[in-house]
């Protein structure tokens, strides 16, 4: 199947709409502007994991020349909210205020300075005197679950916390299909293992950065690097006690977000300071702040219990997730929910049990990160499949083939698990999984004997299957506005947020496709709460599938308006007019270029061809991936060299092959770090030990192996032009595939990632001693 066959825009490698300005280094990012009198803000952070902020003396800091303002909790009204940028009502607990009365982790906000320069602001931080009442801290998640005498959130004001302020439980899930305990008793083999997932950080190149000012109409303008401009405006309005009409959020180009910007991390502070001082205020995180005070992928401990029959049929599967949300519960329920919901349906056994205990601790904050819980779950499940196969004495590919989800199957968990509400049943209406497995196996050379490159090395291959979603069913929605200009070009205004993934180009392609014009005739505006219609934002792999649906609808509406105008002058039915090749063609050889059509509409018919459309889907069709790793291990040192990663991905119709490949390759590089290098290390007091890239190792260009990306096209009936999502699914499989390959090479499993040289070495050593 080739999507590009009858389409001129969708399916083609058109020029990325923002490529030139980015390549030329134009001033396109949040921090590329300055404003007269702009202040720089810096945050004083708590050195204690748990301490009441009794008194903050800011007098010496305020007296410093160049300091415009210093705030702490006495200066800002405490309105409980969540910083998670989610649809209203948010499923995350309202456990946060702008300036806390109690520091809940080492790095929590205590005071914020706004000064003429960053240097003055930093000097002022040192002059602030804080009186703390130090409280006992809980930094271990098991301790947090057990203890009720020390509570991270005991105040009366936070709302909606899982434990109701009486425990440290931030979220609890217990959903079952069938009866797992009873079914396990009937199985020929039950395999139970525990897997450990690290705390990792998205490490986007552009840090969190926001600039806020009050304009000539006394409105608050927030220019910010965000994935969620509309959620942000809503949250800001609430906590600043303003109306949305008084606030405008502008999202310029964004240098990477990966979920870490689906969150209000700095916007509330620049807003408060701009409103207080009347001056523009800028706040940019340092890399250390990103690694201490932004958000992490939740660290988890996952216990898998799986019952199978001798022939490999999976009868029962249980996943118990223990997770640490840290000091605040951003995305606590939903990330952990996804760990099971996005992952367990891969093998739709008749009995499935999914359990979550997510606790508050006095550690830094976890939140959204590309994959949103699925990389953790996929690591556990796909490692576990290899373990089950080994115990069964069955081929690990065969076990997967026997049990994986197929076309027409109903995902057993989705109906039970919504985003904090009842979910919607999910039926697989398109899948290229089998084809992805076949092509992936061929590309990696599955089953072929592979010799190590030196006698002292061991070689192995591993695989993993993954599925994700395309938006949140029944929740995510977006809108688009299409407006025709004199020259036949159109403005496409979308609330959808391009954060570097290329969604502006994808959406322009959909628009161009429907109007029969080249993609470069589509001018994309994304996004500005004053100028573009609503969209939930860039998360949950929603933009191509959900926002794309809105663009298609809006463009069709404009096309219909044009057909009607032309039909009345050409005296034919609107349906008889075809829009293609930048022309409108009617019966009897009537034809006009798109520019002529536009001039006719604007100056003869005197109408503005323009439409806004909204789109929501009650489905979230899963994209699929089969991913493979070929590795070489040095058993004496524990070093792992990844020789090749193959990703075969079904994302429905491939809208832009090169951008889809980029999504896959970027995800593989990020997942390589998850598998082998990345881990934010905390000491026992909750202090981050490695808040820098010297010691928090992400994969660099030198670490990334040859990557083979295979796009297996399917036609998703509910998607725009058959498209599904591509942004998240490829980050799920590489880590388990790599660890499965290590195990294939040396016979020892890493139940804990990253699989550092020392961990691999220790595993081999312990296995040898046994």
């Amino acid at each position, binding site marked *: 199947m080739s999507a590009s066959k009858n389409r001129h825009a969708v399916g083609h490698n058109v020029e990325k709409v923002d490529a030139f300005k980015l390549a030329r280094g134009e001033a396109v990012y949040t921090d590329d502007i300055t404003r007269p009198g702009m202040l720089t803000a810096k945050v004083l952070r708590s050195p204690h994991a748990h301490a009441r902020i009794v008194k903050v003396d800011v007098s010496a800091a305020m007296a410093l020349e160049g300091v415009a303002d210093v705030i702490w909790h006495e200066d800002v009204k405490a309105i409980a909210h969540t910083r998670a940028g989610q649809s209203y009502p948010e499923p995350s607990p309202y456990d946060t205020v702008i300036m806390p009365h109690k520091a809940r982790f080492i790095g929590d906000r205590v005071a914020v300075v706004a000064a003429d320069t960053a240097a003055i602001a930093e000097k002022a931080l040192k002059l602030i005197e804080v009186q703390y009442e130090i409280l006992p801290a809980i930094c271990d998640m098991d301790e947090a679950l057990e203890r009720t005498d020390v509570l991270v959130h005991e105040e009366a004001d936070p709302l909606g916390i899982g434990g109701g302020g009486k425990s440290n439980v931030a979220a609890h899930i217990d959903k079952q299909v069938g009866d797992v305990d009873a079914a396990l008793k009937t199985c020929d083999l039950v395999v139970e293992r525990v897997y450990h997932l690290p705390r990792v950080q998205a490490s986007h190149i552009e840090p969190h950065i926001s600039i806020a000012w009050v304009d000539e109409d006394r409105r608050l303008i927030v220019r910010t690097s965000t994935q969620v401009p509309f959620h942000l405006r809503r949250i800001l309005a609430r906590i600043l006690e303003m109306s949305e009409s008084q606030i405008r959020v502008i999202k310029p180009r964004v240098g990477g977000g990966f979920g870490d910007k689906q969150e209000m991390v700095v916007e509330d502070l620049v807003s408060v300071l701009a409103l207080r001082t009347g001056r523009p205020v800028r706040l940019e995180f340092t890399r250390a702040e990103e690694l201490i005070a932004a958000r992490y992928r939740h660290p988890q401990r996952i216990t898998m219990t799986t019952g199978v029959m001798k022939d490999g049929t999976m009868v029962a599967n249980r996943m118990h997730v223990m997770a640490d949300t840290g000091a605040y519960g951003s995305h606590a329920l939903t990330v952990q929910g996804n760990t099971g919901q996005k992952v367990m349906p891969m093998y739709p056994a008749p009995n499935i049990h999914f359990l979550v205990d997510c606790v508050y601790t006095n550690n830094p904050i976890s939140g959204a990160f590309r994959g949103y819980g699925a990389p953790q779950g996929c690591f556990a499940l796909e490692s576990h499949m290899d373990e089950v196969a080994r115990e069964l004495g069955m081929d690990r590919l065969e076990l997967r083939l026997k049990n994986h989800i197929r076309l027409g199957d109903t995902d057993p968990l989705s109906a039970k698990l919504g985003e904090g509400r009842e979910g919607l049943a999910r039926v697989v209406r398109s899948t290229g999984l089998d084809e992805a497995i076949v092509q992936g196996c061929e590309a990696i050379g599955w089953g072929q004997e592979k010799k190590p490159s*030196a006698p002292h090395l061991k070689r192995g291959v591993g695989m993993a299957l993954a599925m994700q979603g395309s938006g949140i069913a029944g929740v995510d929605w977006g809108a688009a506005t299409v407006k025709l200009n004199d020259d036949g070009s159109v403005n496409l205004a979308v609330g959808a947020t391009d954060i570097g993934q290329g969604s502006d180009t994808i959406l322009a392609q959909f628009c161009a496709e429907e109007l029969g014009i080249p993609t470069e005739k589509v001018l994309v505006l994304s996004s500005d709460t004053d100028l573009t219609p609503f969209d939930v934002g860039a998360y949950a792999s929603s933009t191509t599938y959900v926002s794309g649906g809105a663009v298609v609808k809006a463009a069709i509406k404009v096309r219909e308006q044009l057909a009607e105008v032309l039909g009345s002058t050409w005296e034919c039915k609107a349906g008889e007019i075809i829009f293609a090749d930048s022309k409108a063609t009617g019966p009897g050889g009537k034809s006009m270029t798109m520019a002529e059509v536009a001039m006719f509409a604007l100056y003869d018919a005197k109408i503005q061809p323009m439409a806004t459309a909204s789109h929501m889907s009650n489905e979230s069709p899963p994209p699929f991936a089969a991913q493979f790793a070929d590795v070489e291990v040095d058993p004496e040192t524990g070093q792992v060299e990844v020789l090749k990663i193959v990703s075969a991905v079904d994302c429905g119709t491939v809208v832009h092959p090169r951008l889809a490949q980029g999504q896959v390759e970027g995800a593989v590089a990020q997942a390589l770090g998850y598998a082998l290098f990345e881990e934010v290390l905390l000491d026992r007091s909750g202090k981050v030990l490695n808040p820098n890239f010297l010691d928090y190792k992400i994969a660099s260009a030198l670490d990334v192996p040859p990557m083979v990306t295979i796009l297996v096209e399917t036609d998703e009936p509910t998607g725009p032009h058959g498209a599904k999502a591509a942004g998240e699914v490829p980050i799920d499989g590489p880590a388990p595939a790599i660890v499965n390959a290590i195990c294939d090479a040396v016979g020892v499993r890493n139940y804990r990632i990253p699989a550092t040289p020392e961990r691999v070495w220790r595993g081999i050593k312990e296995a040898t001693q046994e």
Partner: protein
Amino acid sequence: MWELKEYRFAATAQEAGALRRQGPGKGAYIAGGTDMYLQPVDCDFVVDINNAGLSDIARTPAGDLFLGAATTLHNIATNPLVADFAEGMLIQAASHCGNRPVRSTATVGGNLCHALPSADMAPVLLALDATCYIADEESQESVPLADFFVSPRVTVLDDRLLVGLALPAEAATRRCASYKLTRSAEDISLVQVVVALGVENGKIETARIALGAVAPVPMRAVLAEAQLVGQSVADISLDLVADAAAIAAGECEPRDDHRASAEYRRDMVRVLTRRQIMKALHDETTITKDSGGTVA
């Protein structure tokens, strides 16, 4: 944030000393500045020595190799005079330090003066018997590199300037092998091992085993070296090499930190020393893959 009151440029080593002594306040020398920027030095001003005539690489008529202290690691990694010396070991060490932008700025002198246990250039220079030339306005002194490091971040320099390093001609013909063990491709070392063997008439006459990141300062495993001296290259047994490697592992003093445990580091000294000895002896059949560090 690193705030300096003044940034001074020195045209000669002597002037550098004078500028630093001038005050007011505390001064520090700066060359590439890559380490100083990461961990700002407590000082009021810096004296830049990049244009103080300390960036030359030269071979003397006798064959000694001279490296100016302000020579960048990139210049070392690409210089033909260095390529001819000790099987290009200095090139290997320099080209595994940081990444290309860092190497274009960072200098060999800075790498040594910063005196981290993991200094990338220290083991190879120790293994090749480097001598440090130290100067201030009044005096000049030469100190063997083995005596240069005092403790982490502390050298014998005080306020004096390291102007250059000399490697004896005799070291130029040593058979060498080195390995830098890291977590990812661009990383400081968890363990570094350099072996340099002077062979005459089929016998090991001099042996150097230098270790990085496994003691408070870069060190030589002198007891292990002694095992090798006098051995015939053709007849050396694998057991003897393994013994020497085990001795080296006993000599080092690694510690636990968040990068690796002492236990792992010590065992890696054993494994990597054994491999590097075999490799230096040109026994390619025993070990083939691990000569280059994680960067090919």
